[in-house]
């Protein structure tokens, strides 16, 4: 199409037009540059701090570093719980050229099952290439040594060490020290609830039982942090800052491991519980519940087969019989009842009862029998304890009534936690009218009171309760609570925790204490005393009380014949005692399940324990080993 309007061009006008447009374009360019710049100004000046923070947040990561768990030592400094390195064989995938060849090579030195290889390969897929993946865990020292020699041939394969808990004395201390195991969901929830979760960021295990559980917070310590620079893959490039973790406290227990091991040896044939305390300060010198089990099994995750075996065992090894075993206290509480009788003037030192071996109350057809057929004849309160006369205490219980008995025995700590420093404790049962109403929806009958007089019936107690109550007698009403923890090991020695006390028991007549302690002296040292034979010729003067708890009710017209009763229904043999009589250093409480009479079975074992103590392991008032005073060495 021809263009007709092709006139002479006005070059000046066109140049001016272009110049105007060029200027306008430049103005627009300038405006847009201004927009860009103001946006950059906003980012780099106004929001600088925000973006700087985000930039640092990108590159700086805080890695938690687990603190070393505090050690647990016995009173003489013997290590009861330590941290030992456990070795694992780790592989950094990106540093290994041929995984299969590497595994084949490593297998020459370390046994790896096909199952472990499979696990390893499936873990490989879910991990970053530069993060180590475990090929084997818990290498033996031998394996570590063998592999280390050849390590240079395996690039990307390293042996890593982690500290894990180890209990060198195994089953001897399981119920005291307890154990740690892997933190589970339940633990995590608790840690979160208590605001402790961050402190456990790098921690593998947590205390599950015993001292490990009770003093978890003190043993654990405080997490440290490593501030590292990472790239976008999360790979650590360098460490910027390190805030070391604060290790947990090294706890020193009152336990004397040699005494504990001796007791474990003595108890080998028995199911039962032994607790040895120092009545001067409540220190728990030994505490053993048999059967026990190896706590090390739990540290690395117990197999379900092993766990079920423990759980379902009729021997019930998981129970700490010292603090959780609920036994009828039987005759071991007769001294306490005698004191209550004297205090309440239900009896006097002069009260004499004629015991014919049977006890009856008006309008009740039931007959309560004494353990001795035909009875003990004329008995006063001292003799009643010494010979463990049942009839005397049936009558005493009848005259006191359940309300007076319960409230007095609660003063001695029955029916309540002793305050011992482990969580595995039962409060057992000190029966009252209200308790029976609530439990059985029945009123309290007078017939219920009579057996309470000999520590039977509805009354149950734990060995630690019984021991604690004996210590109250020894201390004439002063209360020192049982404590497993002695103190904290510091660079300048052991800092003691101090004695825990409670409000003492008040009496109207302090001489009553003397009478009761004298009756326990007589039990061991006078002619008819039930523990006289067991404690014959000791180089120290002991006092104590036997007990035989019936688990089986013999019909009114039958005799108890041990051989005819099923093993698990045979009597529990019990003993409580202390020595030396004048300045008591140790008190012992023990229960031997289904072992028969306390006098013939429990008292001799108690003597063995005391002999061992006085021969090798006497401690002064401050808990220091003082073998210079050892007596009775053969």
């Amino acid at each position, binding site marked *: 199409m021809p*263009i007709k*309007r*092709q*006139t002479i*061009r*006005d070059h000046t*006008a*066109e*140049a001016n*037009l*272009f*110049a105007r*447009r*060029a200027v306008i*374009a*430049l103005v627009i*360019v300038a405006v*847009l*540059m201004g*927009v*860009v*710049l103001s*946006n*950059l*100004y906003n*980012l*780099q*000046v106004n*929001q*600088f701090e*925000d*973006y*700087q923070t*985000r*930039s*640092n947040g*990108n*590159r700086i990561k805080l890695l938690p570093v687990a603190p070393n768990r505090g050690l647990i030592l016995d009173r003489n400094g013997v290590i009861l719980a330590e941290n030992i390195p456990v070795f694992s064989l780790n592989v950094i995938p990106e540093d290994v050229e041929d995984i299969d060849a590497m595994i084949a090579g490593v297998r020459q030195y370390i046994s790896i099952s096909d199952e472990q290889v499979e696990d390893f390969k499936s873990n490989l897929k879910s991990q970053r290439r530069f993060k180590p993946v475990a090929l084997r865990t818990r290498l033996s020292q031998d394996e570590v040594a063998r592999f280390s020699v050849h390590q240079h041939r395996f690039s990307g394969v390293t042996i890593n060490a982690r500290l894990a808990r180890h209990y060198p004395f195994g089953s001897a201390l399981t119920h005291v020290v307890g154990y740690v195991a892997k933190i589970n969901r339940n633990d995590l929830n608790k840690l979160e609830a208590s605001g402790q979760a961050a402190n456990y960021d790098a921690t593998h295990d947590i205390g599950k039982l015993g001292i490990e559980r009770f003093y978890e917070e003190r043993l654990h310590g405080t997490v440290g942090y490593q501030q590292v*620079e*990472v*790239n*976008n*893959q999360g790979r650590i*490039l360098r460490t910027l800052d390190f805030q070391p973790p604060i290790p947990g406290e090294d706890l020193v227990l009152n336990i004397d491991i040699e005494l504990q091991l001796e007791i474990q040896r003595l108890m080998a044939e028995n199911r039962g519980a032994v607790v040895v305390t120092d009545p001067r300060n409540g220190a728990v010198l030994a505490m053993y519940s048999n059967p026990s089990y190896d706590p090390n099994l739990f540290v690395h995750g117990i197999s379900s087969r092993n766990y079920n075996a423990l759980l379902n065992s009729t021997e019930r090894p998981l129970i700490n019989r010292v603090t959780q075993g609920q036994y009828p206290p039987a005759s071991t509480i007769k001294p306490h009842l005698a004191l209550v009788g004297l205090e309440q003037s239900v009896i006097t030192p002069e009260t004499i009862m004629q015991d014919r071996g049977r006890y009856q109350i008006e309008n009740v057809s039931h007959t309560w029998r004494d353990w001795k057929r035909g009875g003990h004849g004329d008995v006063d309160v001292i003799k009643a304890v010494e010979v463990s006369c049942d009839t005397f205490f049936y009558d005493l219980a009848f005259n006191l009534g359940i309300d007076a008995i319960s409230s007095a025995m609660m003063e001695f700590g029955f029916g309540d936690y002793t305050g011992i420093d482990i969580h595995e404790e039962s409060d057992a049962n000190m029966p009252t009218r209200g308790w029976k109403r609530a439990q059985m929806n029945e009123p309290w009958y007078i017939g219920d009171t009579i057996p309470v007089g000999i520590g039977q019936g509805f009354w149950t107690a734990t060995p630690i309760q019984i021991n604690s109550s004996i210590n109250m007698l020894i201390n004439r009403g002063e209360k020192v609570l049982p404590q497993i923890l002695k103190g904290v090991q510091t660079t300048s020695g052991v800092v003691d925790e101090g004695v825990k006390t409670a409000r003492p028991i008040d009496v109207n007549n302090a001489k009553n204490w003397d009478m009761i302690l004298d009756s326990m002296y007589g039990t061991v040292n006078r002619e008819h005393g039930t523990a006289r034979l067991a404690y014959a010729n000791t180089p120290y003067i002991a006092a104590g009380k036997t007990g035989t708890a019936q688990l089986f009710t013999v019909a009114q017209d039958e005799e108890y014949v041990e051989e005819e009763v099923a093993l698990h229904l045979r009597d529990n043999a019990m003993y409580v005692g202390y020595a030396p009589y004048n300045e008591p250093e140790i008190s012992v409480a023990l229960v031997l399940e289904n072992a028969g009479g306390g006098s013939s079975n429990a008292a001799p074992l108690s003597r063995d324990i005391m002999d061992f103590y006085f021969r090798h392991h006497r401690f002064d008032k401050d808990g220091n080993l003082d073998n210079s005073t050892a007596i009775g060495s053969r």
Partner: protein
Amino acid sequence: MNSATFNPKPTSFLRRMHIDGVLLIGLLTLMAVGLVTIYSAGGQDADLIQRQVIRLGLALVVMVVLAQIPPMMYRGMAIYFYIIGLLMLVGVLLFGVMGKGAQRWLDLGFMRFQPSEIMKLAVPMMVAWYISKFTLPPRTQHIIIGFVMVAIPTVLIAKQPDLGTSLLIASSGIFALFLAGMTWRLISIVGVLASAFAPIMWFFLMKDYQKQRVLTFLNPESDPLGSGYHIIQSKIAIGSGGVDGKGWLQGTQSQLEFLPERHTDFIFAVFSEEFGLLGVLGLLGIYGFIIMRGMWIAARAQDAFSKLLAGAITLTFFVYVFVNIGMVSGLLPVVGVPLPLVSYGGTSMVTLLAGFGILMAISTQARLMSR
């Protein structure tokens, strides 16, 4: 000036080589900044620098060669350039080679070739040639024909899909029309039509990934680990640079590889992180300097074709800068436009310097004619 002088000015060599010294200084400075930044962004990789230097050298040769051609020859060749370019674009759509999810390449047997790069120069040339045939300001029907000339390659390239390049080509043609004196009334109508076209684009022309980019641009924090990641990391890099920057090789965002596309499209973020707002001011200063020089050359050009072409090339160069910095700093959606002469990468570099070669041809020609 006497050509037989014994004391030639230092610029006489450059002048004989048809090189605009002022422009060259601006370009070389920019390239130097680019190399310094690529060295940091690429993890101090000497090979990367070597390859970029070779590419820059080649592009500079192209620039010098194109500077020798008189503008009148460009005017004569414009229509052939344009038609060949169009045919190749159609060829790309029919026989093109796929790469990175887009069909942009033509395999010529001995080399791969991206025809859209030719169009970056062919389109403004064509429009400038067509419009300058008539007296200025152009009449409406010429403007409409000009728009059609722009629209055909723009749509073809957008279909590849290559949004960044089609944007650059569209603007180069439109700048020529604007500089020619297209009336403001027409400009407003085009503006209205363009805004009406936007929804049509959204619903019928844009691919899902392109829509996603726009959505991400509108709210990058909505998908911080997905498609918003680039923009968030880029803004963190820029913002954390502050006024004076973290220092060369000290940018944690880039050195620790949080920043994507560090040495290519997102190199501006690396630069801002390490050199701060002060560095940015300097860099924008160099760009401003080059643009001013380009517009000055355009204004001084002797004929309408040269003026329009020089102006369009210069303003398109600005579009590169604006779109790239805009997207890296979160002002614009992410479209694949490099930071001109700074980003690592070849094809667009050659085209850019070819454009400056033409600019230099116009510049020196103007001076020769004015003498």
